[in-house]
């Protein structure tokens, strides 16, 4: 029987980790994900789980040890945020290219500098091309649910890729919400046991991991890795469907909130999707056909599916909680625009940058963006691309 409980996103994640009880978890503290290894350590200290926790001396070592443990045949995971993720960058690539089904629970936080502990997506967005599957949560419930789905996706033989489960720092990780939690036995049964076919500790069956490969092999290896990323899409959908059937919740690649007949859509990831939905509800009461496309899976990028979901609307606001420093918008905007263009979806799009380093994103701000889309659409006036939301300037916005 599932039950309701009040939990922060970090608590919900740690609770799910206890239920999955992975074999090995190396971790190093960093705000705002610190609570996760703390809580796991406490569960272990109290005999409520028996994962081998490695209190490593850095995030680089947490991912390095996770790579070693996973290659050795142990279901392994770690947790981090921000600079911690940046420090393990090289290892993210190693984990993915070695095709290791690790899980990383990431509590999104801005990257330095300036050093700041609050949420944006610059950490995971920076790691978007490291070969990891990336799944984003809007709220505590999704942080819990997504974690439970992570190992079944990663370990599927069609995939064998690591999965990064992302939630927003503080907004999700520290805010307490009522969520539904499942029985330990049900979670364990859903995730299943881990029995890899080949692993370092398989007696009498040696394995060699991490070769030097000449150019003749390297390009083919990268292509094979990309094929696994492409295949992961169907696996993510299968696992989501299995989860929905069993526990009655969840989404596939994205959630479409009141988009069926929408003229104006906000495409957004993470906790701000809730704010966007509230704005859409209010605007609908006032007669605007507003909707929200909340992207759950950023890697693999569901380009065709997004284009199809947006095809009928008049304009879309693409919301990046990340600066890309490329002179023409955030990463989400680049990818969505490419998806629209390549799939022939003739939709007006405007890219916005919002919420950097924890800057508030309010319902009123979201409403303002919808109104801008409508005004521009009605007047035929072209909107300036690549706009910062809520930025103070001498000229004002």
């Amino acid at each position, binding site marked *: 029987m599932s039950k309701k409980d009040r939990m922060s996103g970090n608590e919900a994640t740690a609770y799910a980790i206890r239920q999955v009880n992975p074999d*090995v978890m*190396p971790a190093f503290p960093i705000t705002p994900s610190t609570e996760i290894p703390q809580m796991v350590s406490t569960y272990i200290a109290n005999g409520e789980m*028996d994962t081998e926790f*490695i209190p490593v001396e850095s995030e680089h070592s947490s991912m*390095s040890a996770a790579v*070693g443990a996973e290659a*050795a045949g142990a279901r392994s995971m770690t947790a981090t945020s921000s600079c911690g993720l940046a420090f393990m960058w090289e*290892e993210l690539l*190693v984990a993915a290219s070695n095709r290791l089904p690790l899980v990383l629970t990431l509590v999104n936080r801005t990257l330095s500098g300036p050093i700041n502990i609050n949420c944006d997506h610059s950490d995971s967005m920076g790691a978007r091309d490291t070969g990891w599957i990336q799944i984003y949560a809007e709220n505590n419930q999704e942080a819990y649910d997504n974690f439970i789905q992570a190992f079944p996706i990663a370990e599927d033989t069609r995939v064998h890729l690591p999965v990064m489960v992302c939630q927003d720092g503080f907004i999700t990780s520290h805010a307490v919400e009522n969520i539904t939690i499942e029985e330990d036995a049900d979670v364990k049964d859903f995730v299943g046991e881990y029995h890899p076919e080949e692993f370092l500790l398989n007696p009498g069956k*040696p394995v060699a991991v991490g070769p030097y490969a000449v150019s003749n092999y390297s390009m083919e290896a990268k292509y094979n890795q990309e094929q696994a990323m492409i295949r992961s899409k169907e696996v993510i959908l299968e696992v989501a469907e299995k989860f929905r059937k069993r526990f009655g919740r969840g989404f596939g690649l994205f959630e479409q909130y009141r988009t069926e007949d929408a003229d104006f859509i906000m495409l957004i990831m993470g906790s701000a999707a809730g704010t966007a939905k509230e704005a859409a509800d209010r605007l609908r009461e006032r007669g605007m056909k507003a909707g929200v496309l909340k992207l759950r899976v950023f890697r693999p990028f569901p380009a065709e599916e997004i284009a199809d979901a947006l095809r009928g609307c008049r304009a879309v606001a693409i919301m990046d909680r990340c600066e890309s420093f490329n002179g023409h918008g955030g990463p989400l905007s680049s990818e969505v625009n490419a998806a629209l263009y390549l799939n022939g979806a003739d939709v007006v799009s405007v890219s916005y940058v919002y919420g950097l380093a924890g800057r508030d994103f309010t319902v009123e701000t979201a409403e303002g963006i919808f109104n801008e889309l409508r005004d521009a659409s009605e007047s035929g006036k072209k909107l300036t691309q690549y706009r910062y939301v809520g930025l103070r300037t001498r000229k004002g916005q």
Partner: protein
Amino acid sequence: MAGYNLKEVMSKPERLAAGHRMCAGCGATIGIRAVLRALHEGDRAVIGNATGCLEVSSFMYPYTAWEDSYIHNAFENAGATLSGVETAYRALKKRGRLPEDENFKFITFGGDGGTYDIGFQSLSGAMERGHDMVYVCYDNGAYMNTGIQRSSATPQFADTTTTPVGKESHGKVQTRKDLSAIIAEHHVPYVAQTTFTKDFKDIHVKSEKAIYTEGAAFLNVLAPCPRGWRYETSEVMKICHLAVETCYWPLFEVEHGNWRLTYEPKRKLPIEDFLREQGRFKHLFKPGGEELIEAFQAEVDKRWEDLLYRCSR
């Protein structure tokens, strides 16, 4: 530990296969073979490896020279990677996912670049946490894989590609980092410094102790590099002999905090004897080099006295 018998240990199956691409005359692989011979037959091993000559030459796809399971991860994290493997072993054993009677040992190899320098933090962490593993540094005193750049293990005055000898330069300015002592100060159960001696008993016995002492162990193996040190490939045993006899590379071990010399030269040879054999020091034998050799000798003497003091306590 059983008595050492060269014929017996040489009759064991090789665990580092031929066909690896290390240079002709490479000291590192002599060391690797010696360490692996100390594994008891029947025991399995997972070998870790920092990026370096050994890695790019011993596992060049699809050719692995390792008869045991092997993992290379990156340059700076051989300690952490094997920490993960060793922890996985404990986890899987605890959970009944490995047969009770299968014993695995964990040995990781790194050059001085991957060990003294870029991998120092990862090594220190692994040692401090006390994983049941052996970290073996094959110390050839420079970043040989990238083309003989100085490391913190490079001896003073060595001519390397980032400390080239020139009109304004006598080679490397600084003296060596004493990594064996630093790891000993982690108070791990076993640390030893060794190299190749005539019958390879010293390295064998120390390797066996390191592998079969419970907890973290560290072996520092002087492994000459003919390319970087500039000597004829055939001369490696002579070079190692002189390193020991001049007390440049003393043979000692630290067992549960107890420092002990495992060999003491009857008559300490002058450091020139070691330096003269190597092209990287040839500038010391030109006019004006006497003072530099004197300084080198003074440093060797000071460190030797320190070691004697530590071993006498």
